[in-house]
């Protein structure tokens, strides 16, 4: 690794930590039970929304009602996204006249966006109308993020409250998240991104003449649009002059801002944040990386404020950083070392004052190795899934890091809200294990952890693990699935494992060589995304409902304090051990095997 690599990582962490505390305090005010300056300022708009929607904003929901409201809202969102995609050819703001998408792709995209996954089996600039991008996809970027944050706040209320049934009002939490947190920050971020060169318009695509004309091999298609093959079965091509380039347009910045801030990750363009119109400069890249961790990091502070003990929030944040930093250094070191199979060629992969060096396949010049590797670690630690370089072309160990960060259950920062409630499930498991060691009933935040809480926390921890392992096994036994891989050898298994891991943990990034737009993948990944997202959320809401009803137990000499370095170590170990025990065998067949085979 070079000095520049450390500077870029260090600078990011410093700026992030400076922003997290004010952000967390602000969000704590937004969700406070008592009215304050923020909620009074927007109170008029809130009341209009509640009246139009027929919502009783003073209703304190039980966990079941909260869960049903959340599910009903998300299913309605899914139907809306589906319908927009199926009817976009008749709707306005479609200057490129894109046709409707296929039913299985539409349902996959709809579930992908309501679950905050943003897995994309389509390429935005050649499939989606501006209206679909704005009014279907970007709306769910907001709503899925707000859903995650709302559920987290309800879970935290469960720990903070005593002997009550209610854990808050889903509609109020959703509305406040959108109005006071997501919209204002997105707007400012969108304008900053435009200043760097991200586009924001409603114009049709622009054709420009190219400076140097050339010819390219254009595949021949028959009348039905199928490729024509020659006698050997190779696609036939004919030399075609290349005289113009079509530049895509569209309302990109407004969607990209919320895509980063809400840890959604669904690109406006196919190449996502590697696209120069989506992430044009190193500064826009820095902003996008900050936006990913801003809310998941800030919510740790919010959590500490809401449970009345700030140290609890810092302990969780420390745990996340203890896992995040070494893995970031790992992926950067692997990428900076370059691709070993190219060393024998006449190629210079060494870092110097004139180039970043390293493995540049799939990376953009303006980001080089450091800003690409850091982005990779951030986007997979958080369940964002935006990419500024092609993960499929990462070195074997460089590709292992993002895969494993997702497999840890997306709890290292994780998705907005969902990352922290996932981590709280691990915290419950951690205090339980500590309780077993000394033979006492475990407590967390003054609440006794008993059989019911343990069942819910275990479900939240184990469901994604089980889904990934089982569905990967199904995929590798299915010929139509194994036919979609884009690379040979151990890497082909990595592609399948990455695909299932990404969908199940609601990340959405991809080893893009795999051609995912076939009914098998569209359907199976839809099931993975839906089940993992909602079973986890409902299990955690059930846990919250249960602890909310309990008395507060004062800390005694036998209580394990949960704000100490000892607890941070314990929690880190639990996360790592569950992730390692479940996935090391699978990782050994993919990235580790590829590393060993390409090293010499």
């Amino acid at each position: 690794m070079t000095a520049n690599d450390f500077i870029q990582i260090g600078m990011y962490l410093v700026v992030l930590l400076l922003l997290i505390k004010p952000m967390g305090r602000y969000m704590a005010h937004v969700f406070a039970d008592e009215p304050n300056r923020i909620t009074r300022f927007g109170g008029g708009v809130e009341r209009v929304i509640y009246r139009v929607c027929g919502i009783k904003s003073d209703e304190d929901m039980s966990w079941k009602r909260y869960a049903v409201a959340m599910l009903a809202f998300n299913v309605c969102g899914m139907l809306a996204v589906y319908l927009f995609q199926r009817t976009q050819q008749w709707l306005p703001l479609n200057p490129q006249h894109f046709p409707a998408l296929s039913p299985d792709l539409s349902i996959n995209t709809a579930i992908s966006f309501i679950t905050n996954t943003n897995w994309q089996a389509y390429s935005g600039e050649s499939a989606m109308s501006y209206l679909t991008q704005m009014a279907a996809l970007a709306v769910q970027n907001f709503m899925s993020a707000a859903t995650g944050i709302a559920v987290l706040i309800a879970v935290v209320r469960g720990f903070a409250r005593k002997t009550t049934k209610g854990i808050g009002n889903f509609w109020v939490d959703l509305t406040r998240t959108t109005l006071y947190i997501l919209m204002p920050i997105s707007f400012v971020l969108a304008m900053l991104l435009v200043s760097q060169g991200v586009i924001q318009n409603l114009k049709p695509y622009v054709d420009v003449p190219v400076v140097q004309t050339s010819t390219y091999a254009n595949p021949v298609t028959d009348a039905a649009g199928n490729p024509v093959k020659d006698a050997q079965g190779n696609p036939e091509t004919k030399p075609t002059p290349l005289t113009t380039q079509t530049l895509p347009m569209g309302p990109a910045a407004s969607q990209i801002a919320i895509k980063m801030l809400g840890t959604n990750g669904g690109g406006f363009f196919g190449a996502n944040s590697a696209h120069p119109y989506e992430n044009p400069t190193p500064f826009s890249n820095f902003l996008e990386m900050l936006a990913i961790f801003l809310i998941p990091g800030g919510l740790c502070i919010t959590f500490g404020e809401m449970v009345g003990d700030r140290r609890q929030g810092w302990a969780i944040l420390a745990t996340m950083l203890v896992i995040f930093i070494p893995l970031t250094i790992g992926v950067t070191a692997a990428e900076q070392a370059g691709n070993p199979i190219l060393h024998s060629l006449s190629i210079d992969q060494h870092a110097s004052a004139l180039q970043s060096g390293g493995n540049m396949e799939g990376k953009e010049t303006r980001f080089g190795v450091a800003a690409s590797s850091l982005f990779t670690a951030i986007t997979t630690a958080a369940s964002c899934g935006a990419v500024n370089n092609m993960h499929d072309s990462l070195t074997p160990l460089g590709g292992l890091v993002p895969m494993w960060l997702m497999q840890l259950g997306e709890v290292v920062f994780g998705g907005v809200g969902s990352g922290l409630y996932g981590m709280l499930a691990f915290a419950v498991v951690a205090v339980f294990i500590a309780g077993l060691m000394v033979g006492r009933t475990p407590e967390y935040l003054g609440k006794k952890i008993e059989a019911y809480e343990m069942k819910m926390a275990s479900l939240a921890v184990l469901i994604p693990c089980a889904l990934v392992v089982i569905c990967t096994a199904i995929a590798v036994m299915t010929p139509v699935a194994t036919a979609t891989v884009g690379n040979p050898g151990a890497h082909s298994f990595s592609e399948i494992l990455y695909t299932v891991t990404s969908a199940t943990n609601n990340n959405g990034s991809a080893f893009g060589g795999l051609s995912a737009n076939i009914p098998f993948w569209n359907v199976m990944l839809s099931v993975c995304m839906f089940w993992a997202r909602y079973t986890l959320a409902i299990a955690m809401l059930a846990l919250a409902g249960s602890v909310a009803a309990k008395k507060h137990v004062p800390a005694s000499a036998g209580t394990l304090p949960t704000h100490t370095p000892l607890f941070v170590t314990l929690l880190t170990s639990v996360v790592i051990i569950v992730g390692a025990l479940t996935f090391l065998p699978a990782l050994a067949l993919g990235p580790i095997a590829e590393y060993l085979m390409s090293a010499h």
Partner: protein
Amino acid sequence: MGRLIRNALMMLLVMTVITGLVYPLVATGVAQVLFPHQANGSLVERDGKPIGSELIGQSFTDPKYFWGRPSATTPQPYNGTGSNGSNQGPSNPALHDAVQQRIDALHAADPGNTAPVPADLVTASGSGLDPEITPAAAQYQIARVARVRNVSVDQVQKLVTQATQGRQLGLLGEPRVNVLQLNLALDGLQQR
């Protein structure tokens, strides 16, 4: 239950209007006023007509031009409506062969140059539209471009220096050279 579903539908409708129409349209309006050049694609114009974008690379294969990053878009390289990387895995023999072919093409255009080729000049970019190369990749090509164009190395070196951007704010990202702007400047050199 019926009330919940009514609430959900109405909430979705209201939020679609706020976040799906008002927000992007206001953002478009403000962006068009504050940053019209960037919001419309950072187009480069000659004689009032757009001839490219500062941010979107074009394909250059003629030895008289600086070449950009290899592009994996299909069917043509630098396809503006099909951004994509190669997605070739690190141990894929096809990647090894593609890199070898690109090295061979550079050697064929400039047989005298036996220095190792900077990595970015023979590996496909992530978007397939990368507008830039590293300063190392520009230095590698200066002698060839000067020879083919019959101009002095110093003149070309000067244009490369002008087209080079350092780290943003002195710290962020990597130094880089915009290929389209450099090549337009080269063409301008000869017209004078």
